[in-house]
Structures are given as C-alpha cells and as structure tokens.
C-alpha cells in the first residue's frame, strides 16, 4: 500500500502528475487519482493548485472532489479497509461481519484509528464469493470473522 505516509504535501509531485495528463481539465478525475495515490487523500493545497493548473475554479475542483467517494479530504490511515455493504454480501452476513469489525477494532465506519480507516463500499464485484472486503487494492472473498482478524493482524505485522 502506497498511501505516502509521513510525507508532507509536495506541490512538485502534483505538478508532475498534472503534466503527465497534459494539464487537460477533462483528466481531472484521473489526476485526482494520482494525487490520492501519492498522498493518500486530496489536501486543500492540491485543490488550489489543480484549479490553477487546469484553469478551473476552485469550486469546480472542490465539487468533483466532494462528489466521489474515492477522494477523501482528510488523511486516512495507512490501510483503507472497506467492507462491502451491498445486497449480495448482506445475503451472506456482511452486517454481522461489519459489526464484528467495528467491535473488534473499536471504531465505526468512516472512522480512522491508528493505521486503519474503516469504510463501507457498495459492491466489489465479488458477489459469488461474498462477503467481500477490500484492503488497499486487494479484494478478499468468503471473509469470515476469523479471516477478517487474520487479515487485520497481517497488516499490523507488515507495518
């Protein structure tokens, strides 16, 4: 997982992402993905910088950032842990899994504690192997409470 933690915001990195997309305003969402990949979220400074670089208003950029679930404006934990809440996973006990997760981690959905940000997600397309969980960019299927604990334990071990 490459949520560049420990690094402060670096305007040069954002500038290089922008130039990779030829500063085309229609590439804003792709550019924001690049920003999130590097910084883990979209810092306020990036919104200002992107507005200027792409010749958009700050309101335009802020509007896009706030619209999409992927673009957090606060710094998340090193590990974004997403538990699917959609129907197929509900049919296989995702409510119970979520209750287990919030209970064992001592945090609610949308919260960040230590290295972990816990989030709901609506369908990972792994509906034949429900319930599904995503950690970073890896999807896990048939996740029982025990398996969830193992996955979380593995994360802490890898810090």
């Amino acid at each position, binding site marked *: 997982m490459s949520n560049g933690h420990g690094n402060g915001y670096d305007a040069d990195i954002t500038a290089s992402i922008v130039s990779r997309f030829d500063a085309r305003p229609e590439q*804003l*969402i792709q550019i924001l993905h690049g920003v999130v990949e590097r910084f883990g979220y979209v810092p306020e400074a990036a919104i200002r910088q992107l507005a200027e670089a792409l010749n958009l208003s700050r309101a335009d950029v802020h509007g896009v950032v706030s*619209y999409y679930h992927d673009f957090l404006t606060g710094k998340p934990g090193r590990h974004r842990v997403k538990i699917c809440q959609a129907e197929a996973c509900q*049919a296989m006990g995702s409510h119970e899994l979520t209750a287990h997760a919030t209970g064992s981690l001592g945090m609610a959905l949308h919260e960040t504690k230590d290295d972990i940000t816990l989030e709901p997600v609506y369908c*990972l397309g792994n*509906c*034949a*192997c429900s319930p599904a969980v995503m950690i970073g960019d890896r999807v896990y299927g*048939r996740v029982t409470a025990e398996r969830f604990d193992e996955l979380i334990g593995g994360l802490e071990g890898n810090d």
Partner: protein
Amino acid sequence: MARTKVYVPRETAACSVGADDVAVAIARASKERGSDIQLVRNGSWGASWLEPLVEVEVGEQRIAYANVEPGDVAGLFDAGFLTGGEHAKRQGPVNEIPYLVNQERWTFFRCGLIEALSLEHFRATSGFAGLEKAFEIGGEAVAQAVLDSGLRGRGGAAFPAGIKWQTVRNAEGTQKYIACNADEGDSGTFSDRMLMEGDPYGLIEAMAIAGFAVGASKGYIYLRSEYPLTHKILSKALAVARDAGWLGHDIQGSGFDFDIELHLGAGSYVCGEETAMLESLEGRRGIVRSKPPLPALSGLFGKPTLVHNVVTLASVPNIVRLGAERYAGFGEGRSKGTLAFQLAGNVKRGGLVEKAFGITLRQLIEDFGGGTASGRPVKAVQVGGPLGAYIPAEQLDLPMDYEAFIKAGAMIGHGGIVVFDDLANMARMARFAMEFCAIESCGKCTPCRIGSTRGVEVIDRMIAGENRDENYDLLVDLCDTMESASLCAMGGMTPYPVRSVLKYFAEDFAPRQGGDA
C-alpha cells in the same frame, strides 16, 4: 518433453480466495521438486464456487482441481497432479464439469480457456477474426448484422443495439466516440469484470469493430475503481494491442485509425448511468444529463457517441464472425441470444452462467446454483441489481426474458441474481434500497435526492410499528412520485425493490416479537 502447463486463474474472485498464493506455492514446489512446469495465468471459467480452480494439461485434456489452498500444493504434487493424479480435490477434465458443459458460451467462450494477456492465445481462438471480417464486409453490413442479431443492451435498459449503431453511424459529424461502460456497480453482477479480466483483447476487438462501423476513431473505457486488478490487466492489454498494431494509426494496414483510452471512475454508483458516465469522462461530477439529446447524437464532448456496456460490445465479434442468424438462434421472443447470468449472494454454486434467454430462474438457482449456500429455503431473489425487484420463491418459474420480467414488475437488467434465504428480513432490504439511493443519488432531481431520505424515514416508522396503514400509503405515494418524476433510473427504479417487498413480504414490516423493534 514439453513443459507441463498448469493453469491458475488471475481473476478477482479467484485471487480473493487465494489464487495468487496458490500460484506462488506451485511455482516454488515445482522448483524444489525439479519438475518442469509452465504456469499459465488464465481468466476464470466463471465457476467461482470452485475457485481457486487449478488445471493441469495432460495430453489433450485439462484436469481440474478445485478450491486449492496453498497448503494443498505439496499433497497435489505427491498425488502426481502433474499427470492428472487422483486427489480429493480432483474434478476431472474441466470440459466435463456439468456447471460449465451445460452453458451456451458465446460471449465468454474464451474466458478461462486462454491466458488472458497472451495475444497468441487470443489469435489462436479466432481473436480479431471479427474485426478482419468487418474490414471485409464494411461498416454498413456490420451495423446491419448487429441489428439482425437482435442484440439488446446488456447494461440494463435492453435497448436494441443495432438501432444505436445505425443512429451513430448516420449522425452528422467528423468526430464520433465509442464509450464503453465498465462501471459495473450493481450488486450481484461481475460479468463485465470477468470478461475484461479473462478476455481483454475481446473487448478491444469489439470496440474497434464498433468504431469502424459507426465511424469513430476514439474509444473510452470507463472502468470503476473498485476493480484494481481489472485495471492492471486492461492497461497491459491496451499497451500490447497498440504495440502489435491492433490499435492506433492504420490498424493492420486497413486504413482505419482507432485507439482506446482507459478512464477510472471514483466510486460513484450513478456514474453507471450513461449520461452521468459521460459527465465523469469529461472530468466533472457524475450528474445525470437530461435527455434528449440522445448520446448517440450528442454525447461525449457533444459528439455522437455509441455508449454500450462491456458485455453488449463483447457479444459483437462473434456476431460479425459467425453471422447474426447464429446469435438470433438463441433465445426466444424479443430476447435473442445469450445472457451471462451471475449467481450471487446466498447460493451454493455461485458464478457466471451464460445461457440463452428463456431459462427459468429456478433452473439457474437450483440446477446451476444448487440452492442456497446456507442450505435453507430460498425466500427471495433480487434480479437486476439494487434497482431490481425482489422476486418471491413462489415465482421462480419466471423465464429469463425481458418482456416476461417487465410484465412481472421486475427487470433482468445486467443479469445479476442475488439469492436470499428465509432468514433475510425483507423490510430491511426495502430500507436499504432507499438508503442506497440516498447515498448514491447525484442530487440533480428532487424526487431522488429528497425522496430517498424520506423513504428511509417512512420505512423506519413502519418497522417501528407507528401508524402502519398511514405510513404504508405514504410510502406507496412516495414510490409513485419517485417513479414518475425522477430524471433517471436511480430514483425512478429504487421503488421497484421497495414495492416488491410491500407486495410479497409485507409481514416483514411487523415489529419483531419481544418489542426489540
């Protein structure tokens, strides 16, 4: 002696239950034991319940071993699995597994069969033969073949594809686009993902054929960000296809220019709606556009745009190659061809089942799916994603046919089938439908933006047993408003699951015994 080929799928579902770890374990064990194997990362056949499904090529056959875990690998080697040895997890030849044999694979015929990123495997299985045929017969004949095949949009709306092709083809304009909707957000669906992971060049070929037929030189794939492995595979496939001259300037000396840009979505369900997707492709908030104008006439950047779902497009190369009649020979009535049904949720044998239209829900859930995973009776089945109705167990003999479903107040949509057992609380599912709409509404129209939140509140009161009759009427009224006055299917169809729960599972709204509600 040739190296023994061992297939381990590189596909999200398989990897989600350990396929990568199994591949690593097999590679390591073969090295230790000095056996000469070639590890092939194929797509998935779609029998997700058997994943990780490992196959070993023995002579002309591929012997399958199911649900392989890294801890099984040593035992498999000991059992001589490289020569098809007996083992508790042995399934026999993969092409004799009933779940797979009993399908009609048209669009997914390469999935599982080939190494997904091997252009050589793709070519050896008629890859690009559809595009070559298109060059030969010309764009008009291609559009006509799509029309004659009876193919309808597989994204959910089921609009006749050929009419769209002809509209875009005949539209004025020098710049036209192909926009492939790979924002597969419906719960219970994964066929787009499986196709892109198992046969990425198949989609590229399909888009090139579409571009050639309608006169577009540029295509976009709008891929949801929840599919990171798909993104890796598609990115690589696009680069390989470009290097090999199957994308770009003057494709294979045909004089036809076509290239594809891959865009990632950012976690918004409504961006699966075609006009919201176009907004998002233009770098903006995924707010639904009013129609008209139709995207076919004024779509991406205001240009004529052919918008199709992944599976719709991927059905085309074989239609062009084998003829429209062959495709139209599958199915019944106005539902021609095959659909990749996806068995999901509480089902024993979940996965992808491509069958001709006309098969019943019961055949899919019982014969293919083997009933519920929990072993309990089926209570309800949601077909067509979060906007689809809940169908009660008594109606499982409903044939999979667009018109039959509409008549029953339901929809087939993208072919996702989510099974619930008798422990499911359907009032909670009705509430979830409204809640999901509230979370994902783009906010442009009031019935959807506000109605969904009011819907959650009304359902909460019903569940709590407050003024049940009054709230019931209010909910029905709210459903009427959302259905008739919303701008798109998000608000317009959220009432479908809600109404179906009111109709078939009203008793679930009763306060639970013991007063805990």
